[in-house]
């Protein structure tokens, strides 16, 4: 079925009844894109077909079903999805997060959720770590894929081996199969898939995102131990360990996920973190860094792709533009939805995507630039003991006095949860009250404080 519309009398590239869309990648970006394409098409009385190509079965335990991610669904995304009619069931949410505990060498402080409610979800992208014994929860990615299938998408379990253009239309081959031609190709392959290389030969100017490596390790602790030791809190660490930018321990159902961000993460850095006093205090008494359940070193995008669209082709999620360090699934949702809205209501030409899709990606990229400044400031705080003490004191005071404005608490909450744009976080740090209190605490923190506990 041709995607140009002869009835309009113009040679416009657009989806029409019978148009076929291929989505390569069945992770959140691919599933969201399929879901919203079908939803928008229904609103526009358009009958389109969607085929998702995904070699993995996310209902399998790692590594067969794993999508290598910390697995935090931000407060903003949880609310957005609820407004879209997508609720995350208890069978997928391993733990609702209600507070963040900030661990530093100078002390520890708990930052409670601004509302008395759990609105951050800890999930596993696949069915769980390698050594999982009893499957109590399902996969987040599988859940989203099923939502797309329930809307009408078809899933082909095959690895795409070739992508080419056939008479101006994208053509896709899977191993052992005949090439199939589509009216639109949505690439949702992330930055860790070998499928990303397949787009290099398509001559429309696409360059993949710049990436850096992260580190994720899983520990089985059991549901009771997790509840007792880690609770419903995400534990974040600002430690003065060379090359370590950010670290977190995320409680799931039976497991705890350790996530590290930094430069050239290697065994030495991982050992330094896991053997730190702050981590040992946070974990059970008899816990040791070995044995572990499984680990991986996935890449994350730190700078967006160049030209992530062309005629009849568009990149969503990580392989397009994502948020810096946080809320990658939220960015997958935003980009996938913007892609669907553009494709259904505007068209599928390069110009359509430039005019209506690119602005969303550009706003994420610009916000990331502010995010880099914010993370640089955090890095300075990590290196200066008196600055760490000042931050701790300011946060402790806000958390212990209910009526006090939660200036730094809100900044830290949004930084750790990825709930707010970096621009909003940065703007809040420029508030005179915030700056005044921070300056006061910086001066006051010249004298060491006693270590406190949450």
């Amino acid at each position, binding site marked *: 079925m041709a995607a140009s519309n002869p009835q309009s009398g113009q040679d416009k590239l657009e989806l029409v009844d019978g148009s076929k869309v291929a989505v390569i990648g069945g992770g959140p970006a691919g599933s969201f894109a399929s879901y919203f394409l079908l939803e*928008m098409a229904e*609103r526009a009385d358009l009958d389109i077909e969607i085929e998702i190509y995904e070699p993995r079965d996310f209902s399998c335990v790692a590594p067969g079903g794993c999508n290598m991610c910390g697995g935090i669904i931000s407060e*903003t995304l*949880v*609310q*957005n999805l*609820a*407004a*879209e*009619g997508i*609720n*995350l*069931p*208890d*069978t997928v*949410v391993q*733990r*609702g997060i209600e507070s963040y505990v900030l661990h530093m060498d100078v002390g520890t402080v708990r930052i409670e959720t601004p*509302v*008395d*409610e*759990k*609105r951050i*979800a800890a999930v596993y992208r696949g069915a769980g770590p390698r050594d999982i014994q009893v*499957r*109590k*929860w*399902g996969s987040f990615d599988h859940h989203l894929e099923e939502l797309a299938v329930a809307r009408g998408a078809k899933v082909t379990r095959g690895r795409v081996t070739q992508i080419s253009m056939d008479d101006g239309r994208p053509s896709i081959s899977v191993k052992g199969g005949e090439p199939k031609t589509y009216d639109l190709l949505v690439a949702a392959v992330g930055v860790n898939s070998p499928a990303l290389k397949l787009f290099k030969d398509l001559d429309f100017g696409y360059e993949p995102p710049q990436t850096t490596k992260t580190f994720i390790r899983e520990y089985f602790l059991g549901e009771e131990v997790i*509840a007792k030791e880690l609770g*419903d809190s995400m534990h974040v660490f600002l430690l003065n360990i060379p090359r370590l930018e950010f670290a977190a321990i995320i409680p799931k159902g039976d497991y705890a996920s350790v996530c590290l961000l930094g430069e050239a993460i290697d065994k030495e850095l991982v050992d330094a973190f896991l053997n730190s006093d702050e981590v040992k205090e946070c974990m059970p008494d008899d816990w040791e860094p070995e044995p572990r359940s499984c680990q991986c070193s996935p890449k994350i995008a730190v700078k967006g792709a160049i030209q992530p669209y062309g005629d009849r082709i568009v990149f969503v999620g990580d392989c397009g533009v994502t948020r810096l360090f946080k809320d990658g699934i939220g960015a997958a949702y*935003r980009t996938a*939805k*913007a892609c669907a*809205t553009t494709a259904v209501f505007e068209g599928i030409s390069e110009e359509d995507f430039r005019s209506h899709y690119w602005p969303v990606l550009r706003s994420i990229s610009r916000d990331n630039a502010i995010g880099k400044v914010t993370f640089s400031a955090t890095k300075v705080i990590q290196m200066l003991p008196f600055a760490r003490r000042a931050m701790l004191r300011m946060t402790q005071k806000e958390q212990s006095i209910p009526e006090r404005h939660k200036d730094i608490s809100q900044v830290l909450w949004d930084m750790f949860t990825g709930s707010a744009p970096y621009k909003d976080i940065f703007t809040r740090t420029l508030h005179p009250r915030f700056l005044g209190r921070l300056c006061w605490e910086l001066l006051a923190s010249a004298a060491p404080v006693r270590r406190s506990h949450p």
Partner: protein
Amino acid sequence: MKKKSIEKGALGKVYQDGEIITRQGDVGEVMYVIQQGKVDVLMGTNDHETLLRVAEEGEFLGEMAIFDHDVRSATLRAQGEVKVLTIDKKNFLKRIHEDPSLAFRIVQTMSKRVRELGDEVARLKG
């Protein structure tokens, strides 16, 4: 994997049977999405409270507070154990300005309720 009782560790806030989620006349700064269970929607006049309907899982409630500056038009009361997720007015409005289609389902819900009210008025007059 289906769990029988409401999982307190997961998302949202759990209300016990008969607990008031929000009261008619209160200032509304959030809307609600029922995650599990049922919610009674009650409206009071003088000393009498009438059950308007029972809202079920997945339904939006209190959405008028997002779009107008009036107080809550009805009381929401948990019928049995209920789990409810709140959506903040301020942040949600900001996101609707970025992506107006985010309001589509709420408009759909409001549209459905206007139809139901119309049917109810016709039934009462008929």
